[in-house]
């Protein structure tokens, strides 16, 4: 059909959609308002903000170089001598005489990195797969549905492989490293994102303005890309926040199995925690610091994510 006509249709759809877009807009505003009221959201936001700040400024705040074994001669792990907190080392020394405080600060960045990258991997790949599936299922006709079935079934199967096995084999291929952890954790999240995006896209696909667009014969690709997709991302973004928390924890688990980041210069909390497990009897503090850091950070993201989810929950909206 002629572009002119398409243009007209576009406007028509926009007309049908605007009403709801306006609503969505106000919904976001509403949810922000609602979140400002919820202590949960505030706690989460504060924690996350702090964490991010530390992560970004880390190397500049840290009093010492994280990898320098400056006090190496003062630590004797084989004689259980671990100098604890003192003026020059607020958190004491780790098992190789490195400043624990500096390592914690620098560690924040690595931890954030793992979380974000892993989540991105899961998000992008998952969104892609889920998007394709949904698009195919809705507009691809018979074969599209077949394709969707195949994709989603394989997603189910992917869910069947224990994330850990996956991680182990990734690690086996890449050798233990930060990227290993990122990839392993990220890949494990793909199915979740795939299902989520597909779900919300299907919901959109049946909404009035899309039906209108179809009725008006707008090219399907166009509908999907410029209408369905943008409107379906909300829940997926929320999920991403939550996955960030999981990613950080999973990363810790992998480090515990010795797949963590080997580079002494860029410590990561999971690795630190895993290392410290060995000294639980002699120097529990070495485990406590990173453990608490991990838990609090993960909690921060979880709180934020949960708050977002609740504030976006349509069932909650209804009452307003």
């Amino acid at each position, binding site marked *: 059909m002629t572009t002119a006509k398409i243009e007209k249709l576009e406007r028509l759809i926009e007309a049908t959609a605007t009403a709801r877009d306006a609503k969505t807009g106000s919904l976001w505003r509403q949810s922000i308002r609602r979140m400002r009221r919820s202590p949960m959201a505030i706690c989460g936001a504060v924690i996350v903000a702090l964490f991010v700040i530390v992560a970004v400024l880390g190397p500049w705040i840290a009093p010492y170089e994280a990898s320098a074994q400056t006090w190496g001669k003062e630590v004797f792990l084989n004689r259980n001598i671990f100098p604890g907190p003192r003026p020059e080392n607020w958190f004491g020394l780790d098992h190789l005489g490195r400043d624990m405080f500096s390592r914690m600060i620098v560690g924040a960045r690595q931890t954030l990195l793992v979380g974000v990258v892993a989540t991105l991997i899961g998000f992008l790949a998952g969104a892609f797969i889920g998007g394709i599936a949904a698009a195919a299922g809705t507009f691809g006709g018979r074969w599209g549905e077949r394709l969707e079935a195949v994709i989603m079934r394989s997603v189910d199967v992917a869910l069947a492989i224990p994330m850990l096995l996956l991680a182990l084999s990734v690690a086996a291929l890449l050798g233990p490293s930060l990227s290993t952890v990122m990839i392993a954790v990220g890949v494990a999240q793909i199915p979740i994102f795939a299902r989520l995006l597909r779900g919300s896209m299907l919901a959109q696909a049946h909404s009035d303005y899309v039906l209108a667009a179809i009725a008006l014969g707008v090219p399907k690709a166009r509908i999907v890309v410029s209408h369905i997709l943008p409107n379906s991302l909300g829940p997926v973004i929320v999920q991403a926040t939550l996955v960030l928390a999981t990613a950080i924890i999973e990363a810790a688990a992998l480090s515990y199995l010795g797949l963590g980041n080997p580079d002494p210069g860029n410590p990561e909390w999971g690795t630190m925690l895993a290392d410290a497990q060995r000294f639980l009897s002699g120097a529990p503090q070495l485990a406590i610091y990173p453990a608490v850091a991990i838990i609090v950070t993960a909690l921060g993201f979880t709180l934020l994510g949960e708050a977002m989810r609740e504030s976006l929950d349509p*069932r*909650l909206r*209804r*009452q*307003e």
Partner: protein
Amino acid sequence: MALLEVEDLRVAFGAATAVDGVSFAVDEGKVVGLVGESGCGKSVTSLAIMGLLPKGKGRKARAAKSRNGKVPAQAEATGPEGTGPEGAAGDGAVPPGHGGAVAATPQGIAVGRRSNRGGADVSGRAAFDGVDLLTLPPAAMRRRRGADLAMVFQDPLSSLNPVVPVGRQITEVLERHRGLKGDKAVKEAANLLDRVGIPDPLRRLKEYPHQLSGGMRQRVLIAIAVACAPRLLIADEPTTALDVTIQAQILELLKDLVDSEGTALLMITHDLGVVAGICDEVNVLYSGRVVESAPVRDLFARPTHPYTVGLLGSIPRLDLGTHEPLTPIRGSIADVIRWKDGCAFAPRCDRVAPACVEGEPALVGAPHAHRCVMAEEIA
């Protein structure tokens, strides 16, 4: 004296007042209508009488004290879903969900599911057989609900439990209030279905709500409501969700029940057609108050309150020529002024005069009462 005497019933959700001093009475074997646009407070009235409103501060506090000395202050913090001491007693009798019923009230009240605002403050009196239902302890109220007074709800699908066979949903009332068990209960349930005009009841008993048609579901709800031969039946928009043809049948059914059993029926509707068809007396509600109350014929013959006139005006009529335009009411129920400042309807009234907004208009005249200072001029 009448079977149900509602006196100066007030229901407030926090700051917002949904029902603002409503009084009316229902005699045995009579059908009384509560009419008004959605949001005028008619549903809230019915729920208040049934004691199905989430408990609000005032009563919660009292209840709290009476239960386990929980201080009101704490109780206030708690949400509407029986989350107070009643909740503590595992009290299922205080459901949150009247989203459908009142969520749209002009004041934007949220008694929605998951709302964590305070519940309803109910005051006034609703004497059933001389007993004030509003002050009955929950347990006692539960014994009466479903037995002495029963209710038929608006949306038959959502009002039936999707995962329980309809038979069970009927027999559980029989068990609870008439102590019928097993086969007895089933037989009785079958009779009920038969009475409400469902063919092949024994098969239907085993079926689930989603397997029934809308009409049948409504009949099932009615069967549940009349299962224990209640003396008062409250029907909240029982026909709104149904096709016109079915509507007629359901109304017929209700009428028969009233006639045969002498049950009193409180019919809540926005549909004057229904009123005309079934009611003996009508109370027109506007913004939480009765603005006109009269025997049905009087009302239709001589509507007094401009609002009533408006309502009647907005029904299509055959006896007028097709070119005669309908006369809808201006504005929406949202534009109101508070009753104590004047007539809440004033903003939408074509006959509005200065007097309308000089203080609170009173309900005058009987049996045909109205709440309009301009009544004489209009008449």
